[in-house]
């Protein structure tokens, strides 16, 4: 029997996943800055501290490096921490523990431990928070073997992938775009998982493939809807997981459409679109390509404070429409 499906916001979906985990698994606990009575900077943990107590919803001092290491240590000794960075930008303080310890510990110890650690990174621009609170750094972590990195784009996936992450024995890094938190979508009740490593064809089409991540999935769908009116039929792939990438789904799509546009918010250079493009260019799909592979990524600048400049620094729907149209029409 199917679970009842409600409309929930993205942040409610994440919260519901955490509540289910806290309820069903005594090893699960939450750690982060102001996730207790404050409810989290983006109100994602909400009232979980009231429901599960301050011992399982831990407000930590402003100590990202140490806190991340505490989560690593707890993970290797039998717990299942969910660690929230208040902003993904603060991961810059904890790269040591994420990259040198969490990602490598199992390997360095020859398989003697697992590091079942989930970390959540509220990411992205659009809130007027300027250069140090608006970054999209997921590509850094996708460059690191030992980690899994996901970017759920919908409330449904946010819940299901978080629950999948909690079942994963290895460290899973979840990038959540801040502008998605308020977005609503259909979310089943109860426990379900959405597999890590599987992309979703959010819109089937035949004229070109757009591979998008996170909030860009929605912008790409909007662009696709607009272009449908012009008779251009775009396939939109929601990549969902950026390490490991679902090669097969992307390759099959490109073989079908012969055109590829990658859309992502992170800085274009060495953002995830670079990997998608390179993956296709060295794959069997190369021979199917009828046009250059186009990337639409963030500008080569920090995120500016001024709201107009801020918007101009990352791809917007009109940019995607223009790029996709040119790609399909063979202009560049």
């Amino acid at each position, binding site marked *: 029997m199917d679970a009842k499906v409600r409309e929930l916001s993205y942040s409610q979906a994440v919260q519901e996943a955490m509540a289910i985990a806290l309820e069903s698994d005594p090893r699960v606990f939450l750690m982060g800055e102001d996730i207790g009575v404050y409810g989290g900077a983006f109100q994602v943990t909400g009232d979980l501290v009231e429901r599960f107590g301050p011992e399982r919803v831990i407000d930590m*001092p402003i100590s990202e490096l140490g806190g991340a290491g505490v989560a690593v240590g707890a993970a290797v000794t039998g717990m299942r921490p969910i660690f929230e960075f208040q902003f993904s930008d603060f991961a810059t*303080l904890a790269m040591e523990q994420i990259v040198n310890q969490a990602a490598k510990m199992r390997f360095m110890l020859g398989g003697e431990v697992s590091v079942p650690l989930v970390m959540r990174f509220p990411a992205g621009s659009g809130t007027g928070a300027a250069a140090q609170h608006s970054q999209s750094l997921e590509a850094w972590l996708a460059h690191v073997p030992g980690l899994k990195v996901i970017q759920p784009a919908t409330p449904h996936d946010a819940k299901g992938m978080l629950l999948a992450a909690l079942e994963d024995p290895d460290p899973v890094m979840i990038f959540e775009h801040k502008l998605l938190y308020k977005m609503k979508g259909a979310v089943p009740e109860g426990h379900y998982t959405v597999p890590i490593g599987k992309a979703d064809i959010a819109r089937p089409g035949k004229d070109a493939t757009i591979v998008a991540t996170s909030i860009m999935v929605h912008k790409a769908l909007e662009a696709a809807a607009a272009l449908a009116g012009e008779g251009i039929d775009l396939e939109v792939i929601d990549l969902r997981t950026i390490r490991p990438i679902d090669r097969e789904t992307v390759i099959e799509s490109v073989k079908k459409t012969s055109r590829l546009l990658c859309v992502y918010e992170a800085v274009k250079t060495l953002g995830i679109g670079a990997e998608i493009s390179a993956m296709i260019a060295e794959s069997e799909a190369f021979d199917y390509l009828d046009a250059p592979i186009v990337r639409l990524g963030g*500008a080569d600048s920090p995120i500016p404070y*001024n709201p107009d400049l801020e918007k101009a620094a990352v791809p917007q729907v009109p940019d995607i429409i223009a790029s996709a149209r040119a790609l399909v029409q063979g202009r560049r």
Partner: protein
Amino acid sequence: MSATAKKAAAGAANVPFAFRAYTPDQLRGVLHKMHLIRKFEEGAEDSYTRGLIHGTMHLSIGQEASALGICAPLKADDQITSTHRGHGHCIAKGAQVDRMFAEFFGKTTGYCKGRGGSMHIADVSAGNLGANGIVAGGIPIAVGAALSAKMQKNGKVVVCFFGDGANNEGAFHESLNMAAIWKLPVVFVCENNGYGMSTSTARSTAVERIADRAAAYAMPGVTVNGNDFSAVAEASTTAVERARRGEGPSLIETKTYRHRGHSKSDRNRYRTKEEIEEWKAMRDPINLFEAELQQFGVIDEAGIAAVRAAVEAEIAAGIEFAKTSPAPAAAEGLNFVYTELQ
């Protein structure tokens, strides 16, 4: 010795430091700046509510005496590093409110040409190397500026502001240690307003007095009433003079309180209304300072009213300047990323 100082020395023995050290004119200047900080932030808050400013901001209302007391002994070319709650520091170090408003409005006439906003407000020409969006991010930078000062033998002192929450960051520890072993001319100022966002110092910090951590770096540490301008100025003067003499860093903890929430999205669930009201009613730094100024005959009611009026006018003009200033053009998006891009 100033006139005020002479009068004071002749009178009661326990005249507060500021009334011994500064002239009445200077003290009235301090009051002016106190109001300027307060009204600047009220103006910014109001503009935010009207949708003229976007993003978020962290108001220091209630903490004005700390910023001004610390900056009191600083020379124009001394430097500071500031925090996300940095409007007060910026004004205290000499910035103009019109260019600050312009920055908040995202305009090219702003101190950061609209690229930084509240969280990166700076005025390099006045010695403010900038607010910082990263908690404790400015602490090592201040140490680096102090290292510069020592290497260049230019006599500058650097003041490093940060909050109680920042004192648990690794950067705090590493920075204070380096400043100490290299005897750098830097003064560390922990503005302890009781909370790092929602987390009280009792829940976040193993020691009760943050100044006690100074011992771990073999530097002097002192806790003062951060809402008492004179007490702060006295502690700062001691520390700045020590730094200027080449004897190394100090740590000052100013105990204070922010009247507003942490940022624009705070619902104040981690503290009580009573607590907030008590601080506002009993320990507002402007009220305290005005009372003291009157007690020592530095100003009267009319004088205070004149200060307030002057400040209101300055604020109104500042907002107008910001409103009518031009916004950056879209084509200028890459400016300032690299020096060769302008």
